């Protein structure tokens, strides 16, 4: 329908292209893509259950049988995102975004209702079957250990865990015998989720409150700014510590708390942008053409106010990841047994006080690189969106 030769790009789209064009941002994006890939395909990459197996003449997929609702949701949502945003670009963005949201909600609901993995995991089951010769053919994951697999079949009183890196466990094992490389891959999920969900919450609250303050000014602004000051005075980490010590550990509560305390900066940005934009001619023109307040605020003002928010979001993701790592390092993060880089760091100092370098180095590098990658992207976005550096569109 549209003429492909002269695809016009909006100001924001051009800024995005500029961002991706920067080497630093590209490196950052590559690393984030690797993390995202590991997060989505974790069961394919590190799993005690083979991906495919031929046993007694029957083909089956033990991996699929042990899928959790999270595994299924991530796979379906990723697939839907690729189809919608790569192959169906001729449809309107709004329609595609709504379809995507619908798919996400539907998949979460359906997978929670219908996906029931076995309640007890016997990780060594297929290793035993392979040893006894019952398995004719098997396709194992590249790392054939789940993060919860404590290698009970390989128990050796002379060699207590943790093991330092060796040929079977390239990154070693932890004190319970779990494979670190597997742990690292499955922990990508927490890293991605903490970053995006808590920043998403912070963005949503920040846009809503900042938008109201900037658009209505006066009393709303006065009250809103006081709210911003109150929340700005809450130290996130101490609130998290207090909460975790009183209630049970829950990753979603942690995300919610990080989000609910870090929206302050976003609100200030959005308020400033709305204050600037509300007097602009095109906003007046939008009101003059009879559009409703909702439409003026969210369709006309908000998209123009998003630029600085993107920058603050990418830095926000980085600091959320750090906050979760700190909590896990202090032993107050996720429930025991769930994969998280911070939790691995926590084990780096062993029972006898000895430094177990492989438990510190690998997750440390992963945290560092991820935070660094988000900062690189944020930096490049800020340069691309800075009107002083480029002709304001």
């Amino acid at each position, binding site marked *: 329908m549209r003429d492909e030769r002269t695809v016009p790009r909006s*100001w924001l789209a051009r800024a995005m292209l500029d961002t991706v064009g920067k080497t630093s941002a590209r490196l950052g994006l590559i690393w984030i893509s690797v993390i995202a890939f590991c997060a989505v395909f974790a069961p394919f990459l590190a799993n005690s259950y083979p991906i495919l197996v031929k046993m007694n003449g029957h083909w089956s997929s033990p991996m699929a049988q042990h899928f959790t609702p999270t595994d299924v949701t991530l796979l379906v949502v990723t697939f839907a995102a690729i189809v919608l945003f790569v192959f169906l670009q001729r449809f309107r963005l709004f329609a595609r975004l709504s379809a995507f949201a619908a798919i996400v909600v539907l998949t979460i609901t359906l997978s929670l209702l219908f996906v029931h993995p076995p309640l007890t995991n016997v990780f060594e089951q297929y290793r035993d079957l392979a040893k006894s010769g019952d398995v004719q053919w098997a396709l194992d994951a590249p790392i054939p250990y789940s993060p919860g697999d404590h290698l009970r079949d390989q128990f050796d009183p002379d060699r207590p865990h943790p093991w330092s890196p060796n040929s079977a466990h390239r990154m070693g094992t932890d004190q319970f015998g779990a494979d670190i490389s597997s742990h690292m891959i499955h922990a990508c999920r927490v890293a991605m989720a903490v970053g995006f969900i808590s920043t998403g919450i912070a963005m949503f609250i920040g846009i809503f409150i900042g938008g109201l303050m900037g658009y209505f000014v006066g009393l709303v602004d006065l009250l809103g700014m006081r709210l911003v000051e109150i929340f700005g005075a809450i130290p996130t980490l101490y609130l998290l510590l207090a909460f975790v010590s009183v209630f049970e550990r829950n990753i979603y509560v942690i995300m919610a708390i990080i989000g609910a305390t870090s929206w302050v900066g976003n609100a200030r940005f959005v308020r400033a942008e709305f204050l600037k934009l509300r007097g602009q001619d095109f906003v007046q023109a939008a009101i*003059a053409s*009879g559009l409703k307040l909702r439409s003026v605020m969210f369709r006309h003002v908000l998209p123009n106010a998003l630029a600085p928010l993107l920058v603050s979001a990418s830095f926000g993701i980085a600091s959320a990841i750090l906050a979760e790592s700190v909590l896990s390092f202090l032993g107050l993060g996720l429930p025991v047994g769930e994969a998280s880089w911070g939790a691995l760091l926590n084990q780096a100092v062993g029972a006898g006080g000895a430094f177990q370098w492989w438990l510190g180095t690998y997750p440390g590098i992963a945290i560092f690189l991820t935070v660094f990658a988000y900062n690189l992207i944020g930096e490049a976005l800020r340069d691309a969106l800075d009107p002083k550096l480029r002709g304001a569109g």
Partner: protein
Amino acid sequence: MTPLLEIKNLNVAFNTERGQIRPVRDVSMSIFPGQTLAVVGESGCGKSVTALSILRLIPQPPGKILGGQILFEGRDLVALREEEMQRVRGKEIAMIFQEPMTSLNPVYTIGDQIVEAVKLHQGVTSREAYQIAEQSLNDVGISDPHRRIHEYPHQMSGGMRQRVMIAMALSCRPKLLIADEPTTALDVTIQAQILELLRKLQRETGMAIMLITHDLGVVAENADAVAVMYASRVVETATVETLFDQPQHPYTEGLFRSVPKLNENAARLTTIPGSVPNPAKFPSGCKFHPRCARTRKLAASAPADQTTELKSGGEIIRVLTRCVNEEPELREIQPRQWAACHQIASYNSAKVTPPVVDHKREVTTEHSTEAMQLEAAKGQTA
């Protein structure tokens, strides 16, 4: 004939940190269907605030409509609820702004922006709305609208964007178009095109136009009726012919004198001395008296007890006491001409009536262009 829009004694106030200012006081004017009313005055005289008040676009707070009525087809817009007002905006009364470079949203294609208003007011499907948008882009003379409808504002020139603004404003066939200095930001050739376009669209649709401008050339070419504003008030209103032939108010006279003339060899252009007073400290009496040439001239020959000395712009001037103490009202000086000045001969006997200038100029624009060409041809042969 009943007016399409009738503003009666409109008063607008803004509450600022330094107290209340009143940029619009007791303003009355009316527009008839198919008529072009030009509102003329220097910057800061209240013409834009009047226009924004019609659509209730002045920011509230700090702005506030203190009193008066704005009757649109008999309905008082001042009293309408906000939701009712949203149905009037864009659909019944549309507005185009001075600065086309910033009047379009940079993140949407021009098509998106026109379609949004069309869908809202006409209840049509997206496909039909796109057709209407394409048609209205075509009407304002944008070539290849099928392709350009998908372009972003930054890909267009100022003149193009103003055409898009007009297309957007007219896509819902409003009965009244408020054009707030629509050509001020454009260069002269584009100005002429845009004004010609507005005249053409007015002939085709029969809409009324409220044309806010400070360019008397634009007024002479386009207006049927004129309202001259000075320091928050209408000081003179008349048909365009009467106003140009017999301006009554000294401010109007001053405006005409300030237009540079080709056949005059003046080293300095004539100006009205001084500037529009700050709305926070308007002078007493007639707000024009510190700058008024007429009152100074008359004071020179008047008895001393009828004059007052005052400081204006660093010099001591002598003006008539009545101009300082008493504010003149807008009175009907002659049929279809109202003016507010004590020093008009018939002012004291004239009555205060609501200014209603029901007048459509005789000659259409093509005729006037032809007539001008004829004149030019005559001048060459003579």
